[in-house]
């Protein structure tokens, strides 16, 4: 369970960093344009697409290692 909790916390921190840390460090500026978009407009388009990849990886890890699985009642996804 500790392995699963560690993975979950890492995923939470990564998503939070993408939205907050990366925004503050690299994208909160008016120029230059990225793919024709102002930096923040670009970044807040990218992160909602990256986040499911992060959480999807966590899901696969969770399905493999989470001991709670045996108490789940729905079919495996």
């Amino acid at each position, binding site marked *: 369970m500790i392995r699963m909790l560690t993975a979950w916390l890492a995923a*939470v921190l990564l998503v939070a960093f993408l939205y907050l840390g990366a925004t503050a460090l690299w994208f909160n500026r*008016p120029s230059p344009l990225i793919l*024709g978009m102002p930096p923040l407009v670009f970044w807040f388009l990218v992160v*909602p697409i990256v986040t499911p990849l992060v959480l999807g990886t966590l899901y696969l890890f969770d399905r493999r290692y989470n001991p709670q699985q045996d108490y789940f009642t*729905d079919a495996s*996804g």
Partner: protein
Amino acid sequence: MSEGVIILLIALAAVIVMTIGGILYGRRHSRTLDGWLVNSRLMGPFLVWFLLGTEIYTAFTFQGLAGYAYVNGAAAYYNVALNDVAYALGFFLLPAFWLLGRRFSHVTQSDFVASRYQSRGLGIFVALATALIMIGYIDLNIEGLGAVVHVISGGSIAGIWPDVLGFVVLGFAVMFGGIRGNAWQSAIKDILMFIAIVTLFFVVPFHFFHGFGPMFQEFHAKLGSRMVMPGIAPKMGILWLVTTVLLTSMGQWMWPQWFGISYTARGPRSLKLQAVFMPLYQLIKWMVIVIGFAAVLLLGYHKKEGNNVVMMLAGHVLPGWMLAVFTVAAVFSAIVPAGPIIMTSAGLLARNVYQKIWPKTSDATTYRLTRSLVLPITFLALVLAELAPALIVVVLLVAYDFIAQLFPTIVIGGLFWKRATKEGALAGILGGWIVAGWLLLTHEDPWHGINAGFVALIVNLILFFGVSLMTRPADSAFLQTFFETVYPKKRRVSSVGSK
């Protein structure tokens, strides 16, 4: 008859048809409190997806968020970030709530609190307080409905009638349909809303700017101060963004209706899958924010009309039939999300206040009482919206600051820290609410650039840990069972090979 009135009549007809559909569909599944509130924990991923979505993608997303971007510029991105961080948190939290709910027969958030802390009093306190906060939250949707009707009718339909109509429809749909009926309405609402926003997102750039590239170039050239933080909103800098997103993402799952929605799922795997895919929904919010920026260039800057900008742009560029679809979507975005909130408020008052104070009340009576409270609660929200709109604005502004103060009690104490006590929980919640209230009333939000609710949460945590360590926790044997439900010691031998 003007085009606006015809469009409103079409929208009304659509609302009535969908409401009857919801009633007919939900009635079969809504004969007990468990069935009515949590669909007997049998809902599959498809409907849970829409139920989760409907509570997040509301009238605020449809109208308020564009208005927020129109008024405050890049600060609006907080609303994209908060839900995704919350989904990452929810990946573990919602399945844990579900497991505990199934093991200990929880139907509401208050059941969870009373059970974990072995305290009927704390459960009643949380039920009452959150039910009151939620009634204020329902009014957000009344305001959204009013804005739609006002714009589409060209200002000719005003006063309380749009709100009265919306809440009569909502009240009866919830009372007869229950959560299952609401889920199907949510599915239709989300599809319509998706079509409406995506259409406007593509039509606006090509109609007014000759494409996306020129539109973003104009953002860059003319809206530079709106493209960064703090930009035009001097109090909303990066520190505000960080503390607001942390506070609101922790607060999101503390709304009592989320417990009800998580209990509806057939199993935790459905909830985990929602956490994986729900972030894609945020692209809709991104589109709405872009529309809000475009509105500044197209409509000029009139701060008071921020909430109307989406409907105003839709009225400018969409043909009549598409505007009708847009209006139906906007009306549903106001009406449907209020359903689970009303049901949860009614459930909390009937099950966690009335039945706990008078324990001899049977489950059948509690179920009837819950349903009979739907219309009075809806009516109370309507009265509040009409009589004290200024109060409602305050309630909405502070709602997240207050609801997030439950995080230490429910998440830290409820899922991670056995040593937490009911006294520590109560001290933390009250301390947090007092600090949040004081900072807000003295106009100290943000406080040195930090979200006021976040400051309150720090005080809350100090009290929560300090008082808990000085008081006695609940019975250790019970806590052992409680926490083992979330943290099973090992996997069952029989199933290891199949995993």
